[in-house]
Structures are given as C-alpha cells and as structure tokens.
C-alpha cells in the first residue's frame, strides 16, 4: 500500500468547503439556498472530524461524532423545511429580506 494522504490535504479542502458554505449562506437571498450553504459547512466539519479520526484507529471517536452530526443535520433540515413551507404560505415568498413584519 502506498503512503497515506497527508492530513493537511484534508484540512485544507475542508477549510475551502467551509468558506464556500459561509459565502453561499450570506449571499443567497432564499431560505433554501441558505440551507444548502449550511449543509456544505456541516460537510466540511465532518471531513475534518474524519481526517483526524484516521489517527485514532482503536476508538474512532471522530467518526462517531461525524455520525451524530449527520443525524442532527437530517433532523435540522426536516424541521427547517417545514418552517419554510409555513413561511412561504404566510409571506408568499421565502426571501429572508422580505420577512420584516417584526420590524414594522
């Protein structure tokens, strides 16, 4: 077997994915676009956890944590989409800049 991939490669890819996810979250003016950015950021965090867990082969605590992150992300998206459906019924759009009823 060839030499394993260095840890830094994973960490730099994860950093790039996290930054892209942050940019998507800020720039998209649509709640579902924001959710897509959040998913990208969660994936970047999972990649970090898995990369570090490679050096813990007996317990794999990083991979276990990543598994729980996936579960919580699934729960989060279900509830978020239910809320988005209610909001789109109420406002007729899901642009977060137009949800300003509390400001008036």
């Amino acid at each position, binding site marked *: *077997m060839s030499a394993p991939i260095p840890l830094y490669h994973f960490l730099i890819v994860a950093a790039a994915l996290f930054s892209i996810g942050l940019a998507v979250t800020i*720039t998209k003016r649509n709640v579902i676009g924001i*959710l*897509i950015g959040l998913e990208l950021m969660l994936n970047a965090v999972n990649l970090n956890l*898995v990369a570090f867990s490679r050096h813990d*082969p007996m317990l794999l605590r990083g991979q276990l944590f990543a598994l729980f992150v996936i579960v*919580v992300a699934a729960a989060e998206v279900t509830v978020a989409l239910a809320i988005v*459906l209610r909001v789109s019924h109420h406002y007729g759009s899901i642009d977060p800049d137009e949800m300003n009823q509390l400001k008036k």
Partner: protein
Amino acid sequence: MELAVFYSFAALAVGSGLFILLTRNLMYAAFALFMALLGVAALFVLAGADFLAITQLLVYVGGILVLLIFGIMLTRTASEDDTSQTPNRVLIKLGRSFWGVGLSVILFLLLLGVLVNANFRLNGPALNSRSTIRTLGVELMTSHLLPFEIAGVLLLVALVGAAYLALNRNPSR
C-alpha cells in the same frame, strides 16, 4: 495514484461548491450540492471511513437532497417569462456579494494560516485499510449508547414536529 484520486475528488467537491456559490438557479445549486456531497463521500473513503461514506450517501443524497428539491418545488413562485421549455429554472436573487465573498475569503486565509503554522503532533500512524464497521458498532453500543438513544428520540421528535408544523391548519387557503 491515491493522491491523484484524492485531488480529483477534492476538485469535484470544491468546484461544485463554487458552482453553488455562483449560480442563480436554485435547482442547479441543488444538483451541484449532489456532486459536492458525492465528492465528500469519496474523500471519506480515502480517509478510511467506509461506513460513514455510505451513510453520507444514504442520508444526504437519499434524504436531505430529495427534501431540499421538494422544498424548492413547493415554494417556487412562477415568473412571467417561464415557459414549458424551461421547467427547472428557479431563479433567485443574490445579495450582499461583497460582504459574503470578502468575509469567506478572509476566513479561508485565516484558516489556511492556522493550518500551515499548526504543526500537529499526531498520535501514532494513520489507520490501515481495515473496515471500520466493527469498531463503530461496538463503540455505539457500549460507550456511546446514551447519545445513540438520544439521537433516536431526537429524530422521532423532529419527524413529529415537522409533520405538525407543515400541516395546513387553514383549509380555505
């Protein structure tokens, strides 16, 4: 060889992420998210996490992405220049591009500087190519039993709550 595969999947993930950032069509963003999740799953395999890669594909691609596409289709507002020739055109507005891109570039450079200067002292050599399923199963059922049960309850509560929230309480609308 392994490094070349790693670079191609990393390029797939990061390139799909950049496409999500630049596109105005939300449907294309969802499909690009599919490619990004696929790339991340391949990176999981290269990091020795075979079970996690399969879980990623099952939960994200099979569940979360389908939910997102349903959400896009249920909340789209038809515009006047839509025809039947452009069925998957869900254009959205982009805003705050300067702050969003600027902040994330700053964050990326910050993370890059930290990573380059970090000099991690790693505990032992990397994992060899052994399956992780046995270790994960044993750990889940022994030392991580309480979080495992809580995750089950959380999923149940989230499902019931989402079904209740999405219920249309006003049938006349």
